[in-house]
């Protein structure tokens, strides 16, 4: 590590560049109770509710729409295949958190 060859200098330039780029990196976002709940939904509805396939996307739907839908699935007022079985696992308060989380997704 005492003498540097040409390739060392090349590497060092590269490092400096990457260091500068790296310093503009975003910081940690808060892990909220809502995101802990909502991450489970991504298994079927896609990351943050952006479903790429046959399962309805829920990102950006209104809070009221999602909240009402989940409560209606839970009560059986709204017919579903699997959503009734899922919605029964959440309290009113949790449903509100979920609805707000997905409504706030772009």
């Amino acid at each position, binding site marked *: *590590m005492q003498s*540097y*060859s040409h*390739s*060392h200098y*090349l*590497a*060092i330039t*590269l*490092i400096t560049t*990457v*260091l500068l780029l*790296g310093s503009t*990196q*975003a*910081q*940690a*976002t808060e*892990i*909220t*109770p809502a*995101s*802990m*709940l909502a*991450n*489970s*939904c*991504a*298994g*079927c*509805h*896609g*990351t943050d509710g*952006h*479903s*790429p*396939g*046959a*399962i309805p996307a829920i990102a950006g739907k209104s809070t009221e729409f999602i909240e009402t839908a989940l409560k209606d699935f839970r009560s059986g007022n709204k017919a579903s*295949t*699997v959503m009734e*079985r*899922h*919605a*029964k*696992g*959440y309290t009113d308060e949790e449903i509100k958190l979920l609805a707000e989380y997905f409504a706030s997704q772009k």
Partner: protein
Amino acid sequence: MTTLSRRKFIRLAGAAGASSVLASLGWGLSGCQKSAKKARVVIVGGGFGGATCAKYIRRWDPSIEVTLIERMTTFSTCPFSNAVIGGIRNLNDITHNYNALRQKYGVNVVHGNVIEVDPVKRRVAMEGGMAHDYDRLVISPGIDFRWDAIEGYDEATSATLPHAWKAGTQTQTLRDQLVSMEDGGTVIIVAPPNPFRCPPGPYERASLIAHYLKENKPKSKILILDAKEKFSKQPLFVQGWEKLYPGMIEWVGSNKGGEIVRVDAQAMTVYDKFDTAHKGNVINIIPPQKAASIAHTMGLVNNDGWAPVNQTTFESTQHKDIHIIGDASIAGKMPKSGFAANSQGKVCAAAVVSAINNKTMPPPSYVNTCYSLVSPDYGISVAAVYNIQNGTISTIEGAGGVSPADADDVFRKKEAEYAVGWYQSITSDIFS
């Protein structure tokens, strides 16, 4: 420039091809100095649990350096591998790459085999001499087979009598054997005892093989020899089989001689515990299972061969700062499924990010849904929502359960469509 550590260089130049530059400089990868980054997390296993965990750590905190070590350069999913075996998908359809994890999330993806971990030096050793230092380690290595459990069946034999319980070459072998089989042949599926990866998997496999045979070789039969006395979604599967494939699938439980103890590969014959012989034209043996070997090497498993963890954080009960998720872990009431591993990957990511930032993690929540295709137009599911009760992952009472027994064709078709939709969503949640 002498303060610049080799470790920093390796990490920072990683995206620009560090290994080749390093090789030309003659630098090794061990003996590295302290990181400039907040913390280094190494994840072993780039499947359902590990790849999810990598992505979600970086989403929450991009100042944490994440290195994901995976033996394979592409990942073929077990989910929908039964559809490949049944001829309604091909292997390409279920194979994913690590480009998005690298490029979009800045995960340092390294391909190779982890052979050892030093929990004191906090160093992961790879075959070929490379090493990676960590502040926290996550392992999601999946399962390995108990090759000593069935006499006459070992890894070499599995080349001709495939297990197809890890997707890839084995999946294709079983598919090819079904295609070559004459009409009127018998396909034997040997199903394993609990606990094992994907509880409904063997029965979905029988269903999709039946779908193929019904259309192409209708005189053929499927015999499921089971080490268990009952299985997941049994009434729903049996109802579907009677409706779609009457007389084609026979299931034999362990008390009727379903438990296979010996295999004669040459004679294409399996023997149950009463020494009754069953001859097949294609034989799929799904052996008893245990946590993948690296979990054993690291001393993370109990006497049953699975890894006990704190079920809120997935930290090993044996080693501090080492987390285990997915099939290899003991995760309360959750089954060994890809959905569960994905769910656990996110909870574990939250636990790791919270610990590194000295924060308290909000209460975890977990979900599982396992869809099975009885035919391409006939889907069934089992679901559950979980939380922590008395320190273990427990089902929330009143929620979850299986598809209704009296559902009509429209309902079953909808669930088949959702099975496909689920696959697209979960693989995008992991790999894109």
